[in-house]
């Protein structure tokens, strides 16, 4: 009782509801899970069951053999993110969840583009690659395969620019992200 700064009697009108709000921005969830069979299914099945929509998903090992990292991006305009993370936390194999702020993390995605590039077009495509610092990783007579690494914006910009040349195929890994600064993600 009588804590400084705390009113004795509180007015109900002043109480504000917490949680369940949609942030309206993109979220990157970095999830550490136990490296056991079926864990990815548990995570994705939870998203499906609760009606949460995954935009991108990528899974890979970490520096610890027993632990994998799942990176999921989703749209905070459609989902109450705190519900998503709280439900994820209930999975016994989920060890840690970070909801990364886009400003507090650096994120990258890898994409590969197969582009029609014969004759005269080829030079133009190569020029475009240079601008985007994309790497040509396979060349045939009528096509080239290009690797682009970068932010989602960069990859999407490259896609827009390369499309007119004849985009045969595109593959994207989904984003991974790491917290800025010294602290662990």
């Amino acid at each position, binding site marked *: 009782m009588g804590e400084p700064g705390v009113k004795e009697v509180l007015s109900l009108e002043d109480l504000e*509801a917490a*949680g369940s709000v949609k942030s309206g921005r993109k979220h990157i969830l970095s999830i550490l899970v136990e490296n056991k069979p*079926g864990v990815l299914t548990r995570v994705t099945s939870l998203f499906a069951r609760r009606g949460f929509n995954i935009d991108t998903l990528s899974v890979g090992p970490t520096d610890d053999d027993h632990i994998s990292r799942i990176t999921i991006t989703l749209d905070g305009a459609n989902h109450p993110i705190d519900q998503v993370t709280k439900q994820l936390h209930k999975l016994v194999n989920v060890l840690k969840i970070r909801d990364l702020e886009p400003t507090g993390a650096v994120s990258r995605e890898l994409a590969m583009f197969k582009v029609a590039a014969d004759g005269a077009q080829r030079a133009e495509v190569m020029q475009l690659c240079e601008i985007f610092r994309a790497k040509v990783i396979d060349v045939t007579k009528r096509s080239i395969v290009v690797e682009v690494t970068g932010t989602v914006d960069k990859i999407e910009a490259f896609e827009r620019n390369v499309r007119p040349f004849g985009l045969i195929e595109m593959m994207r890994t989904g984003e991974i992200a790491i917290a800025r600064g010294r602290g662990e993600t």
Partner: protein
Amino acid sequence: MRAVDAVLECLKAEGVDVVFGYPGGANIPTYDALYDSGIRHILVRHEAGGGHAAEGYAKATGKVGVAFGTSGPGATNLVTPIMDAMMDSVPVVFITGQVRTDLLGTDGFQEADVIGITMPAVKHSIMIQHPNEIPRALHEAFHIARTGRPGPVVLDIPTDLSKADIDYVPITDVRLPGYQPTTEGNVKQIRQAAKALAAARRPVIYAGGGVILGNASEELVAFCRADRFPVTTTLNGLGGFPAPDPQWLGMLGMHGTRTANYAMDEADLICCIGARFDDRITGKLSEFAPRAKFIHIDVDPAEISKNVPAHIPIVGDCKGILAKLKAEYDELGADPARLSDWWQRIEGWQGKHPLAYEDSHDEEIKPQRLIEAVYEATGGDAIITTDVGQHQMWAAQYYHYKFPRQWISSGGLGTMGFGLPAAMGAAIGCPEKTVVCITGDGSIQMNAQEFATCAQEGIPVKVIISNNGYLGMVRQWQELFWDKRYSSVDMGEFPDFVKLADAYGCTGVRLTNKGTLVDDLKAAIATPGPVVVDVRVTREENTYPMIVPGEAARDMVG
């Protein structure tokens, strides 16, 4: 020792004295170990019966229930009880046999991906990969099932691994880095809640099954008595606050009392304890309790602000939280007189809208009257299990529950067929109690095979069938919302339940005399062994009052 012998050792270490199950090829090793283990096994007649019996046992005793099933169809028959246990947070460990590891993924005989099939229906599940993992996995399963928000855990053991030899070392520590339920409520939040309660003019305490699961009934009562707080509970919370009582408003929700629902509607502060704002409680969500601020106490943080945003969330075990909340509240010295207007309003509703029905003017037995008669015949002391339908709602309305774990029903999933096996589990868990299953003519047929189990094992459950010859609840909806087009709800007069009981080796009686109903019920209940009582009730009676699905609670009908 064989891994299966270790399984039995672990069960003993967990204090398990009874298992409900059914054997088959893939779990014969487990049954071999069970043979001279000293643990009682109840051979049910269908795995679902075993699963629900384990639930009934867990709900009645607070201990973890255990159910066994074989691979494939044995395991898929357990899916309904697993989901049921999930929805009502019942601690049950399900142990299924699985095909040999070399057959996994080959569509081997009686192979089913049990872990996959049950994934969205479990609190956790473990597929055994190596026999040495078995003891630890078992204790983890119990730990997870029992702690935090309880729930079902499935353990799937391939048959070759269960036969393997292992070095069994008793496990005394369970470490799960990804599982650390919060138990202690935040002190500041509790203090804030106490202050809000002291400031409230129209508070309502809305308690749910969490109070029962958390063994917090005593604390709930003490807290509610700290002032004259009006109390309502959900279906699963019945018995958490003793009824009848001057502070008791009755159950809330779809078939709750008008008083409870109106009080929620006009409340300025609702203190939710171990409940989850399910649609059967709120009615039309956007019009639910429009004037209220919410304190939400729950052990599962994901429940908070899931359906209704909380103003004061408190995560943790409600037992400790309620004790602290009462202490904080007592310190504030709130003036009870501030609630007199509120009580006046509440008493107005109570006077105007008591739970009532019109009794028949002839020999016909009204189903509501049947429940009242059961209440009288048992002195209000029996453990009541129910099935699902109108009889369930009448059993919730017209029997008064005065102690926790007295009311055992399938709330979240609404599983017909739950009542009889759940009663078996309760009777085995609480042999000193009278256990009555109130069921319907439809529901009882979903697990009637368990009459044989009761007869063989001498499980003295008293099954009372509110027999309206209809899938009554569905008929009611068709009457009210589908122009009385009674599509596939008439069950006729089949079977003859007295003969059926007889065939199964139970005592069967049919009661038709309204005047002697209570005495006849007393006599039936006093009959040793399992008894089936068939009572023909009014065919087309409706369960009222009712929140029309999708409508606001204040617009209840009937």
